[in-house]
């Protein structure tokens, strides 16, 4: 029953017990299972967002909402900041794969280098998200905001494009309601994602410390780097979908 025969096993041998029928370790498989469940949770949030948006007569225009950039004052730069955030996260995903690759070759110094870059990327992303949140909060957006029916239209018309404002439903309450819904979803979903990024950074730091201490060299393999890599790529993947739903669609 050596593992050399694993790939040529018959069905009976595959499921006969004593080894993984999928040829993966328990830890890796469980990480994939967890990511699947987490994907459903995020998916449920995004579907809820989509359903609410589809049954709203008007909806904020992302080009109008997300046009600020740090240190650029009131410049109108739609989607530029979030594109930078996406780039940072994709970069950190690449450095993560390179760390996993170094781990496969037992290159401890390489693992440390690439893990450090990944952690830096994660912290940069979190800082950007914190800036975005602070900026939006300063212009009045938050959970449970825009509920007062006497709110003057000028306070939220800036989030919409002309087509939406021209819609008669806009001034009749649909504009206010949509603004309220939009920001509830925005802060919840990006907050939940940000929490995942933050916990990912903490786990990455723990794995980095272990690597520096030589734990994985003693163990004989760097599979822990692989597993945290899976989590980190999942976080990147979720951002790809959040970015599409909130900022592009």
């Amino acid at each position, binding site marked *: 029953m050596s593992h050399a025969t694993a790939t040529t096993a018959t069905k009976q041998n595959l499921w006969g017990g004593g080894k993984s029928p999928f040829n993966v370790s328990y830890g890796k498989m469980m990480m994939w299972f967890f990511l699947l469940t987490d994907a459903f949770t995020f998916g449920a949030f995004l*579907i809820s967002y989509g*359903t609410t948006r589809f*049954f709203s007569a008007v909806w904020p225009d992302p080009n109008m909402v997300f046009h600020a950039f740090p240190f650029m004052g009131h410049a109108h730069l*739609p*989607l530029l900041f979030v594109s930078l955030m996406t780039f940072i996260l994709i970069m950190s995903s690449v450095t993560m794969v390179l760390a996993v*690759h170094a781990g496969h070759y037992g290159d401890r110094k390489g693992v440390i280098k690439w893990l450090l870059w990944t952690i830096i990327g994660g912290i940069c992303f979190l800082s950007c998200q914190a800036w975005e949140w602070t900026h939006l909060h300063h212009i009045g957006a938050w959970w449970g905001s825009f509920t007062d029916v006497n709110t003057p239209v000028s306070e939220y018309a800036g989030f919409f494009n002309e087509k939406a404002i021209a819609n008669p439903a806009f001034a009749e309450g649909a504009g206010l309601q949509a603004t309220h819904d939009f920001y509830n979803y925005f802060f919840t979903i990006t907050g939940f994602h940000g929490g995942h990024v933050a916990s990912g950074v903490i786990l990455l730091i723990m794995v980095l410390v272990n690597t520096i201490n030589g734990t994985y060299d003693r163990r004989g393999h760097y599979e822990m780097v692989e597993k945290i*890599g899976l989590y980190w790529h999942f976080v990147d993947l979720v951002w790809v979908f959040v970015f*599409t739903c909130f900022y592009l669609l």
Partner: protein
Amino acid sequence: MSQHHSHNEEQFYYEGDQSKLYSGIMNHHFNHDLSSPESKTQIGRIWKVFWILLFVTIVEVVVGMFFSHAMPKVLVITFFLVLTILKAAYIVSVFMHLGDERKNFRLMILMPLVLFIWFIIAFLYDGDFWLFMNTTAPMR
């Protein structure tokens, strides 16, 4: 003493340290050089996917900034969802190495997600119908 040395090595690993059992595709190349051809190929693959992801994202942002207003809604949604799923496919198969795993494992992960697409379509359709219902049905 000899009893310790003759225990089933596989059983020992099975309980304590699984990844040594399942080298499979993800072979641990501790004896190999990081500058070996196969390592270089893999690194090249990683950077290639990075450029693809970057390019697709730039295309998406440009379309989102300048062209999505003039396109019919269905086309916008299809365009962005197809590109997003393309990016996701690259990340999952190359970065997360799912493409290198065994087929039954790949299917186990991918099938629920494919069914999830049905879920997405059903609820978006539902939301759309709600709007139609609320704006056209007579009030009692």
